[in-house]
């Protein structure tokens, strides 16, 4: 699914340069649930942006779903982002002036899906994430957890090959964070490949594999022997979330 080889990224700000990634090689297979962790500034977001085709590496190769992306132009990048990648951000990044439904429709709009199909699919996606009653609400009328679920619905809209989530629980309280993790686990059980960036170890432990970065280098890559089950965590404390 993902194969990167010796990927590096150097930012140059004015006179001096910052090496954010210094030669990273790794492979992620279809259906995996991978967490990338590391201290702040270790290069997690940089790696995520490269994987998400939002940025171009300074050196190294990247093969996404069998496509070597190094020779592609901006339009082809946009097209691949649209079809193969679903983003979930820490700050949700929903368009504030659009309703939940319209936000979820956006990726399909850029994929050229017709209005009725777009609407139906967005509705289905939101219903699946327990937001059936909220489809006509604006982001400002929804809680953090609900907003992140809208963002996940949006990430899934074009049925992407991979979901990239950069600190998706960073702006949420721990209980809502667990809720979101349970959604990711559920998605992963249904076959979605997920790459999650987090600096919190207890969040990372919901994945099957943890990759650790330090100063732009990959320092460990370990299988999680017994991943935490977010569904169980939610049920064990007294109150229950409204996630199915």
């Amino acid at each position, binding site marked *: 699914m993902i194969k990167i080889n010796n990927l590096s990224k150097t930012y140059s700000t004015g006179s001096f340069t910052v090496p954010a990634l210094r030669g990273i090689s790794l492979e992620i297979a279809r259906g995996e649930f991978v967490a990338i962790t590391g201290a702040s500034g270790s290069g997690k977001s940089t790696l995520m942006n490269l994987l998400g085709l939002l*940025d171009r590496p300074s050196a190294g190769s990247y093969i996404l779903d069998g496509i070597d992306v190094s020779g592609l132009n901006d*339009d082809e990048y*946009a097209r691949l982002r649209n079809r193969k990648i679903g983003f979930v951000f820490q700050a949700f990044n929903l368009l504030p*002036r659009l309703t939940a439904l319209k936000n979820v429709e956006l990726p399909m*709009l850029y994929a050229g899906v017709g209005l009725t199909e777009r609407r139906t699919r967005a509705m289905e996606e939101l219903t699946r994430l327990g937001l059936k009653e909220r489809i006509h609400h604006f982001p400002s009328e929804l809680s953090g957890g609900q907003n992140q679920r809208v963002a996940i619905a949006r990430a899934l809209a074009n049925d992407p090959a991979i979901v990239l989530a950069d600190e998706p629980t960073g702006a949420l309280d721990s209980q809502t964070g667990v809720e979101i993790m349970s959604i990711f686990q559920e998605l992963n059980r249904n076959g979605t490949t997920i790459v999650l960036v987090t600096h919190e170890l207890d969040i990372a432990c919901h994945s099957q594999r943890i990759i650790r970065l330090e100063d732009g280098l990959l320092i460990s890559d370990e299988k999680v022997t017994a991943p935490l089950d977010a569904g169980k965590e939610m049920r064990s404390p007294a109150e229950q979330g409204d996630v199915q």
Partner: protein
Amino acid sequence: MNIGELVLVAIESIKSNRLRSFLTTLGIVIGIAAVIAVVGIGQGGRAMLMQEMEKFGTNLFGIWVNYQEGETMRPGDLQMTDITIIKEKVPQVKYLAPATYEKMQLRGEKGQKSVQIIGTNADYAQIRNLKTRWGRFIRSDDAAAGRRVIVLDEKTAQNLFGSGNPVGKRVMLMNNSAVVVGVIKNDSSTLGFSSQQIAYLPWSFLTRLTDRDIIHEFQGSAVSKEEVEPAMNLSKKILERRHNSPDHYFAYSMEQEMEAANKVTGIMTLIIGCIAGISLLVGGIGVMNIMLVSVTERTREIGIRMALGARRRDILVQFIIESIVLCLLGGLIGIILGYGGAMLIARLAKWPPLVSWWTIVVAFIFSMAVGLFFGIYPANQASKLDPIEALRRD
């Protein structure tokens, strides 16, 4: 993504910030409204002017003596025989009448009044399109029979005899008397050309009264609009030859006057149109300014759209369409306001409201072009943003 979708996106975004959108497009509203109103008023005014000038008579021309400085009027420069000969030799001339002007005090049963006297013949009524209220105009046999007759206009008749038909009554003038044979209708000219009170005498009668054998002017009409030029030029040539005095005569036609008037209103429309055009330009710059602000404000939105798969082209087109839709809405409001303004002024000035469909089409296309032109730069700025930079902005 097709254009229809992009238009919807643009409308959505314009709707979500109504007040600002309206203020942004206000320059366009005012510009377009001004253009429509000015053009409408100009065209209406011109139409009315033409209408008024038609009332003087169609295919009208006149010939004067072209006196040089210091020259005094000579009797015999224009003669009654000239009229006969011109009518004989120039088939393009349909009617030709002498006109001699005097100011006289007229006295009737009920009052007196100083009025403009025109000494002329039967053709004059045809040339100047005069309509009788009562009786008749001067006839060709009046002069031959030496009849002492007078034709009044309605107002003068009112002054001299009160209301009612004065035909058959006597008017005293210059210690003589004349019989009223007809009354001419005063037409209601809005331009005020016919506010003057006029009485008509057979030319021969007038010369006998004043004892001065003089004709101030010939007035004539041609058989058709196309024949006005040849009619007046040939008449002039005959006069020059008969009196053996080249360049002694001066001919003019209503057509020429109309053209001159047309030119004046045309230039006025052009000048005011230019001013309106400048206000449109300023409006367009306003739109560009706000679009640039909007691009800066919506940097994050642009980043999000790019992350979700929008190509640079999609962003470019989105902002251009937004600018066009904004200007079109402004143009639409401007058309309505301008049309209303033109109608209002036309009603107040009592002239036909004329906002032609092509003015509206041009205004529409123009506001679209303004939107396109002034939207390109901000839209290009938006499409050149780096997605990561844009996403980081808040």
